[in-house]
């Protein structure tokens, strides 16, 4: 009788253990993406400043802003709208760039944040939050400057904050 009880307890504990392990595994497998819009920005700077930082010291800037697992820094970038375009996923792309700057920051919005920028026009100064994907460089094969790339962007309302 006593032996049966031990076996029963062991089996139940084993079952619970399996469920927990399975649950954790399932959670990790289905772990949602980081919600960039709801997170605080790590750095606030102008489009000109981040471009200058990358052109001066690309390795240092990559070390500072890029993450080894792709969860790179969330930046708040302020700058003047040089162009507004749409990509192949129908996401809006705003280029923030100074008048005489060599490169700027391209900010790709999302299906959800697209609508918040429809009223914007070239020349307006705005602030955008997003995750950095790569920095600005002069590429000698393209023979042009590449912009800083910011994705999962949302528009920040400076007047209200």
């Amino acid at each position: 009788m006593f032996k049966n009880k031990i076996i029963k307890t062991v089996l139940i504990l084993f079952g619970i253990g399996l469920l927990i392990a399975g649950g954790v595994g399932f959670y990790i497998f289905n772990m949602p993406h980081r919600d960039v819009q709801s997170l605080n920005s790590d750095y606030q700077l102008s489009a000109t400043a981040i471009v200058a930082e990358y052109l001066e010291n690309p390795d240092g800037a990559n070390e500072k802003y890029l993450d080894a697992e792709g969860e790179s820094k969330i930046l708040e970038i302020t700058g003047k709208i040089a162009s507004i375009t749409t990509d192949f996923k129908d996401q809006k792309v705003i280029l923030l760039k100074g008048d005489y700057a060599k490169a700027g920051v391209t900010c790709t919005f999302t299906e959800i944040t697209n609508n918040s920028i429809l009223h914007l026009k070239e020349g307006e100064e705005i602030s955008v939050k997003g995750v950095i994907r790569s920095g600005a460089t002069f590429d000698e094969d393209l023979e042009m400057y590449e912009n800083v790339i910011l994705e999962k962007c949302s528009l920040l309302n400076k007047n209200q904050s």
Partner: protein
Amino acid sequence: MKNSTISLVVIMAFSFSAFAQTDNKLVSKKTHFKFYSHTAVEDIEANNYSSVGTININTGEIIFSVPMQSYEFEKAKMQQHYNSAKFLNTKKFPKSKLKGKISNLDDVDFKSDGSYKTNVEGELTIHGVTKKVNEEVSITVEGSNVVLNTSFKLTLADYEIAFKDGKPSTNIAKEIEITVIAEY
């Protein structure tokens, strides 16, 4: 003094090349890179909309610069694996590059509408490893619009992207398919 002279020359050279590109260099307006891996266990897909490319219509030179952290996966965990030092190491190698040339440039007329089959020979650099590639690329001209399409297979081991053990070694194909569309 000497330094400033040199930098002036460099600046001038850059600005001349900037002028030159308006004549014969097309710059991409939008791009889509997709990679697709098929195994019996699962199909994995990742999409990238942030690459930049150029076509030089005089020389047939085709360039793409691909920001590697822009690849979006359905599952966050896969994306972390992909970026990590074990696989693509995107912090150390944030960009991949294709540097190619149309070998049958005479068959392409960028001035008249049509769809042209071309062959692009060149070098592909991923994960800091450069390999020769030779792929079929289709170019469609419609007025001032030029669209490039291609799809090719890539063996991950060639680029020293290894999946020695664990889930990735069984769930990721040894050979993956890359699909590219670019509008200029």
